[in-house]
């Protein structure tokens, strides 16, 4: 796969559009990714209040076919794929044998085949797990570089579907997907996002991605092209799992509050024994949201204190544009891991007062906008 990557012009499927808007690019696992386009405020506001488009073609995309596909994926993920209905997807975890998180993945049940997708930074890890456990009769097709993934997110993102796909598109339920056509292009449309707003992913042949963007812009000229960077804050604000930020010291899924991605009744999956042991032993620390009420942006891995006592450390942090306050997710000793208490946490300006709060930090606009 590495040689294929090197041979391919492995860059954003919307490279020309991004370039025309002056995007800043960076290499993420060998993929030329647009990190920022029109500025953090404009991109943030687009997704929080209207509509933003982000190229997610870096995603790992694998198709599993042949006898044994279900058994393979069922063994490799902590969620239950066996109970997954046709055209539904499961957002779950791949664990290693000692229960550490290898990747968060989406598993799509697609007419006797399974499609596994993940963030581009986890593509190699997921590929290795699939290859390492596959029996000879399972065919694994890595179509990551042949297909683009274009995310359409925001409280009015569904209007795009209404125009491009029709009523079938807007009636798509969360964590479901469908196949359709836009003109002569076959697309797979998934209702899945991580910003807390209405979110959809178009999967389509890579060469067709620029035309999709043009068609979206014909429907809505105010669409804003977004980079990867703004998504860290969008996810933090609604506590969507962020592999790169939320588990800085290899914390367990239960410490990170990811119970819902695990089927505790499932008899067998890689890492199950470690998860069950973690559960029966009881957690020594838990991930909790903190909101600052003094100025200062929390420091990643900075300390959290009750008076002079160190009671935890910051994992993921940022400054919320919506609530105009520093926010973070921090691992706190279990006795402190409850909402409603006041602590101090390290910021670039020194320790500042913060309170443990429920997440998400606010209700997104999409919770108030009805899909018409």
């Amino acid at each position, binding site marked *: 796969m590495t040689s294929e990557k090197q041979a391919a012009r492995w860059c954003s499927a919307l490279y020309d559009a991004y370039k025309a808007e002056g995007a800043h690019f960076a290499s993420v696992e060998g993929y030329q990714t647009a990190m920022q386009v029109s500025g953090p405020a404009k991109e943030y506001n687009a997704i929080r209040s209207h509509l933003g488009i982000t190229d997610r073609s870096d995603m790992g995309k694998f198709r599993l076919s042949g006898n044994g596909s279900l058994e393979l994926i069922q063994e490799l993920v902590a969620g239950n794929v066996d109970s997954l209905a046709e055209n539904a997807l499961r957002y779950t975890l791949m664990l290693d044998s000692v229960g550490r998180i290898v990747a968060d993945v989406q598993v799509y049940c697609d007419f006797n085949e399974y499609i596994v997708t993940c963030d581009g930074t986890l593509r190699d890890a997921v590929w290795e797990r699939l290859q390492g456990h596959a029996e000879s009769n399972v065919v694994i097709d890595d179509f990551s570089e042949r297909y683009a993934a274009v995310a359409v997110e925001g409280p009015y993102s569904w209007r795009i579907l209404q125009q491009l796909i029709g009523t079938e598109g807007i009636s798509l339920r969360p964590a479901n997907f469908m196949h359709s056509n836009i003109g002569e292009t076959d697309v797979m449309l998934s209702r899945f996002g991580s910003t807390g707003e209405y979110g959809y992913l178009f999967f389509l042949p890579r060469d067709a991605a620029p035309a999709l963007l043009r068609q979206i812009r014909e429907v809505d000229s105010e669409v804003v092209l977004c980079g990867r960077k703004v998504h860290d804050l969008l996810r933090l604000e609604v506590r969507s799992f962020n592999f790169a930020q939320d588990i800085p010291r290899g914390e367990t899924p239960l410490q990170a509050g990811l*119970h819902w991605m695990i089927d505790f009744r499932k008899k067998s999956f890689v890492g199950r024994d470690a998860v069950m042991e973690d559960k029966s032993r009881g957690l020594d620390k838990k991930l909790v949201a903190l909101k600052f009420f003094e100025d200062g942006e929390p420091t990643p891995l900075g300390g959290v204190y009750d008076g002079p006592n160190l009671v935890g450390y910051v994992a993921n942090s940022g400054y919320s544009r919506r609530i105009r306050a520093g926010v973070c997710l921090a691992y706190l000793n279990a006795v402190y891991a*409850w*909402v*409603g208490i006041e602590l101090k946490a390290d910021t670039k300006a020194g320790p500042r007062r913060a309170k443990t709060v*429920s997440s998400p930090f606010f209700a997104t606009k999409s919770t108030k906008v009805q899909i018409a």
Partner: protein
Amino acid sequence: MNSRMEAVITRRREVIGRLKQVLIRSLDLELEPDEIAEDAQLFGLGLGLDSVDALQLVVGIEDEYNCCIPSDNISIYYSVNTLADFLLAQRENKGDDV
């Protein structure tokens, strides 16, 4: 840990424990309380509850706490923690036993 903080945690722990039991009982969930994270989304992704579950959950909580939960404020129903926020705020406002 000072006594005020201890009191806040004790109240929160009691409400969370009771809420999880109501959730499991009302919806007949095949889960144990320690298999539900307090901040996990109840609807959509997360526990994957739907609108029928929402009605049952509201009835279950209202029966348990002898209270009325507004059905038009979606942010209350996001997670066990947000439900607990609502119930604890009610208690502060009315002096009810939660």
